[in-house]
C-alpha cells in the first residue's frame, strides 16, 4: 500500500490520528499517573515541587514490596482461578441460554429472557446480605467455591443477552444448511455459530472476566481465610489502611492487576477480522 500523503494524510489525521490521540490520552492519563506513582519513592509523591506525572528517581521498591510484604501471588492465584471458572461457567450457561432465546422457538421465551434481568434489580452491595444466607446454607462460606458459584449470578444474565445479540447477527441460513446436511442443533451451535460469533464471545469473556476480577463485596464478606483472598480485597485490606495509604504499593498493585490482562486482550483481539460472515453466505 502506498504511503499516504497530501490530502489522504490530512484525511487520515483528522479521522484517525487526532481522535486516536485524544481518546488514548483520556484513557491512559490516569494510568500514567498510576504508573508514575508506582515507580516513585513516597517522598517525591508528597513533594509539591515535583511534577505529578514525571518521575525523578525510579524505584521498584513498591513492586518488590507487593511480593515480599504480602501474599500478592496468592491473591493473584485466587483471582485467576475464581475469575476463570466463573467466566467459563457463565459463558457456557449463557451461550446455551442465549442460543435458545435467539433461535429456538418455544412458549415463554420472551418472559424467560426478561426474568433473567431480575438478577440486576438489587445491587450486589446490599444483595450480599441475603445472599450470604444462601452461601452459608450451601456450606460454601469461606471456600473459594463461594465466589465461583455466586459470580455467575450477575454474569449469566449478561452473557445470555450479550451472546443472544451476537447469535442473532449470524444468518440463520448457515445453520439451516448444516442441519439439512444432518447436523444437530448442538452441532450447529458448536461448529458453526460459535466460531462465527467469536468476536462476541471474546468480548463477553473479557467483560465477564474483568467483572469477576474486580468484584469486591462478595469476596470481602463470603471469605475469611487469608489463603482465599482475591486481589481487590487483599490489596485494599493490607495496603489501604484507614487513612494512611501506601500509594506506591496500591498503584503498583493496580498496574500489575490490569496490564497483563490488557496485553492478553491485545493478543487475542487479532482474531477480530472483518467480514467473517461474508464468505460463509456466498458459500
Amino acid at each position, binding site marked *: 500500500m502506498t504511503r499516504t500523503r497530501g490530502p489522504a494524510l490530512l484525511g487520515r489525521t483528522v479521522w484517525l490520528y487526532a481522535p486516536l490521540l485524544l481518546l488514548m490520552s483520556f484513557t491512559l492519563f490516569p494510568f500514567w499517573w498510576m504508573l508514575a506513582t508506582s515507580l516513585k519513592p513516597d517522598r517525591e509523591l508528597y513533594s509539591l515541587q515535583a511534577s505529578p506525572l514525571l518521575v525523578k528517581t525510579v524505584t521498584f521498591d513498591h513492586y518488590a514490596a507487593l511480593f515480599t510484604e504480602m501474599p500478592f501471588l496468592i491473591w493473584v492465584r485466587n483471582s485467576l482461578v475464581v475469575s476463570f471458572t466463573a467466566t467459563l461457567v457463565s459463558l457456557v450457561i449463557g451461550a446455551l441460554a442465549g442460543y435458545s432465546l435467539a433461535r*429456538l422457538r418455544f412458549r415463554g*421465551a420472551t418472559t424467560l429472557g426478561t426474568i433473567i434481568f431480575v438478577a440486576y434489580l438489587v445491587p450486589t452491595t446490599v444483595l450480599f446480605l441475603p445472599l450470604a444466607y444462601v452461601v452459608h446454607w450451601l456450606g460454601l462460606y469461606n471456600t473459594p467455591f463461594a465466589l465461583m458459584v455466586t459470580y455467575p449470578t450477575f454474569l449469566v444474565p449478561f452473557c445470555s443477552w450479550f451472546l443472544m*445479540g451476537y447469535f442473532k447477527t449470524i444468518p440463520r441460513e448457515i445453520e439451516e444448511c448444516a442441519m439439512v446436511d444432518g447436523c444437530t442443533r448442538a452441532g450447529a451451535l458448536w461448529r458453526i455459530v460459535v466460531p462465527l460469533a467469536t468476536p462476541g464471545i471474546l468480548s463477553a469473556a473479557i467483560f465477564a472476566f474483568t467483572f469477576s476480577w474486580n468484584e*469486591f463485596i462478595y469476596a470481602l464478606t463470603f471469605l475469611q481465610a487469608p489463603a482465599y483472598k482475591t486481589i481487590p480485597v487483599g490489596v485494599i485490606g493490607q495496603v489501604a489502611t484507614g487513612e494512611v495509604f501506601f500509594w506506591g504499593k496500591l498503584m503498583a498493585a493496580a498496574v500489575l492487576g490490569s496490564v497483563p490482562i490488557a496485553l492478553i486482550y*491485545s493478543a487475542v483481539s487479532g482474531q477480530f477480522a472483518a467480514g467473517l460472515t461474508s464468505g460463509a453466505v456466498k458459500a
Partner: protein
Amino acid sequence: MGARAIADLAPSQASPRRLGRDAVLGYLWVTPALLLLGTLVAYPFLLALYWSLTSKTAGVAGTFVGLDNFIYLLGDRIFRKTLGNTAVFTVASVSVKLVIGMIAALVLDQAFRGRNLARGLFLLPWIVPTSLSALAWLWIYDDMFGVISRLGMDLGVLRTPIPFLADSLLAMLAIIVVNVWRGVSFFAISFLAGMQSIAGELYEAAAIDGAGAGRRFWHITLPGLRAVMAVATLFSVIWTFSDFTIVHVVTRGGPANSTHLLATLAYQTAIIGGKVGEGLAVSSFMFPFLLVIIFLQLHFLRRSED
C-alpha cells in the same frame, strides 16, 4: 442481496416447524441459567424484597411494617435528592459513553500500526479494579495535589486549585467523568465486535455507488449495530444506575449528599447505619426504573426488525 436481515433481537416466539424438538431443546438449554438464578438470585431477591417491608436491622428480625419504609423514604429529603442524582448521573454518563464509545470503535476499527495494542490499552480502565482506579482519581481531583489543578496553575490558566470535590456541581461532574472514563471501553469493544459481523460487501457496494464515509456510517454501520447498541445500552444503564464504588471511594455521597446514588445510599443505610429494611427499600426503588428501561429497550429492539 447478500445482506442479511437484522432479525428482531427479542427472543423468538412460538411458531411452526420443528416446534416440538426445538421447544424441548429450548427449555433444556435455558434450564441451567434458570436453575442458577432461581436458587442463587430469586431467593435472596425475594428475601430482600420481604425485608424492605419490615423494620429489620442486622441480625435482628424486624416487624412487618408494610410500605412504611417506602413512605418514609419518599418524605426524606436525602432520598429524594439521591433519586435525582442517580437519574442525572445515569442519563449523562450513558449518553456520553455511547457517543464516545462509537467514535472509539470507528477509530479502532481502522487499520494502523499498533492497532491491537491500542485496543488492549483502551480496555485498561475497564480492567483495573475500580477500588484502585477510583483512588487514583481521588488524587487527580485533590484540591492541593490534583494533577489537573497543578497543570492548570503551571500553565497559568488557573490561579487557585479547583476544589472539585467540595462543590456539589463539580463533584457530580467529577464522578460522571470517572464513570465515563471507566465505561467507554465497554461500548467501544462491543461496537467493535459488532462491526466485525457487518458484511464487508455492503461497504464495497456502497463505495462503488459513490456513498461517502458519512453516509456509509449512517446507512450501514449504524443499522448494523442497532442490536448491539440496544443490548450494550441496556446493560450500561443497569450498571450505571446501580454504580457504587466510584462514589464510595471518591465522594461518599458528599458534599451534602449531592453525589449520593441509590446504591451508595442503600449501603450507607443498611450496612453502616444498620437499618437493613430501610436500606433495601432504598434499593427497591430501582425496580420501577429498571423495569421501564428494560421494557423500553425490548420495545425498541422489536421495532428494529427489517
